[in-house]
């Protein structure tokens, strides 16, 4: 799975963008979006997903259930 940003909650503050270890976050129409193909849920990088940890509005960065959980490939 990957994380996704709930557009209606995003304030466009950009705090998440530089924190993402995978450069998966970019701005689109004044809010930010996560590229699910690049998101690793921060597994292997940090203990907690950086976008979730830094976002000022709770429940804005959430698991995108459309994708399977990310797994570290050998």
């Amino acid at each position, binding site marked *: 799975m990957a994380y996704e940003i709930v557009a209606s*909650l995003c*304030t*466009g*503050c*950009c*705090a998440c963008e*530089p*924190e993402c270890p995978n450069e998966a976050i970019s701005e689109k129409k004044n809010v930010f979006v996560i590229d699910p193909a690049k998101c690793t849920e921060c597994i292997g990088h*940090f*203990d*907690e997903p*950086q976008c*979730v*940890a*830094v976002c*000022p*509005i709770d429940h804005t960065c959430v698991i995108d259930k459309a994708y399977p959980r990310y797994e570290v490939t050998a």
Partner: protein
Amino acid sequence: MQSTIASVSTQEVKPLEQLLEKIADHKGCGTSSEGGKASCGSSGGPVDMAPEVWEKVKNHPCYSEEAHHHYARMHVAVAPACNIQCNYCNRKYDCANESRPGVVSEKLTPEQASKKVLAVASAIPQMTVLGIAGPGDPLANPAKTFKTFELIAKTAPDIKLCLSTNGLSLPDHVDTIKGFNVDHVTITINMVDPEVGQHIYPWIFWKNKRVTGIEASRILTERQMLGLEMLTAAGVLCKINSVMIPGINDKHLAEVNRAVKSRGAFLHNIMPLISAPEHGTVFGLNGQRGPTAQELKALQDSCEGDMNMMRHCRQCRADAVGLLGEDRSAEFTTEKIDEMSEVVYDAATRKAYQELVEAERSEKVAAKEAAMADLDVTDIKIMIAVATKGQGRVNEHFGHATEFQIYEVGSNGSKFVGHRRVDLYCQGGYGEEETLPSVVNAINDCHAVFVAKIGGCPRDELKAAGIDPVDRFADEFIEESAISYFKEYFARVCAREIVHVDRGDADIRQGAYSAAA
């Protein structure tokens, strides 16, 4: 005398020729610096302030109360990201009619910000200070913040640069701040005890983790103190902002005051909590109240030992433009700036205008000193509310005032002690009956209100509330007038014509000022 520059703060800038003509009229009292001191004895430089410090703050409206009548600031909102969460802040809320820190209508790129600064500086020649104050934390957006400084320093080197931070990443950036010649940094410090801090800061983002509870405040306070010490060592002037939150840190702020003073902070600005429920902040939603005017003043008075207290802060937006207390940001939207093909930086007009302002300031200070010459000794102090639109003069109509400046006057002369926002009494040419009680509540601790003009109805109602409406000082300097009024008042008390009584408390308006666009 008539104000020579009164019209500038409203809309247009006078053509250069007119300015130069006016400057010629004021010759003989310029402010060409010699050894860091303004000529004419004292363009307001306090006796206890080192000349090099005065040189840094004298044209900075946020660092000098005296300067804030004459000089304007602007904030550019290039720094939206933040690295901490505060219970008095809600980043979701964004409204053009709101004026609070953290609120902004649109964020800018450093390039847009730089163009905006040039456009504003050319239209408002008294704009001397460019600050980056968010809407997040400038040092949580270091690339954008410093790029903006770089662009502005290149094209408009006379503009002072400053920034405001929560301090968490401050120690990492002190060298860069120094490198850009930023001589003013504001740190918001609400506590020096993590036990207190846990009720103000739910979390911080630190070393790739969200840290909560006491631990968050412990890290924050350590970083703030370290950052302050480093700035002091680097010779950067530091102002400390503290939000007064009754029941949480009101008693504790005296300790904060001692802690920051001992680490070299230059100025302490204790501000009232803004916590209206409609702002959607944690404090707003859980009913945390802000202080009353008297509570705020008592705390500020108690901290005013050897440290300067700032009482003229308007808690402005992260994209505010203009004199403190006014906001002209609507005139300079990104759309309007983008439409301008090329902005020419008009350094000559700015310099000419600022020379004129300096002449006015010297005149104002001299007038105050002259008025103080024969003040009687007494314990009596009175408070006076003043309707002004700048230049240190009584030059606003009662009905047009969106705020009143508050002066305390006694044997030691006059002192600016605060300001009160009010709803416009007069809208569309007629007085709104229902707004008068709120105006009276806002200045209820004052014995008199100085205005340029006032209608018959509000005059009678103010009298009924025990506040003396005074229009005979129209266009005169505020402090000179306040001292004259006090002399007359004291003479009447001595002659037993009136009995002096202290007045009650006053409200600090929660819904913040917004420009009547």
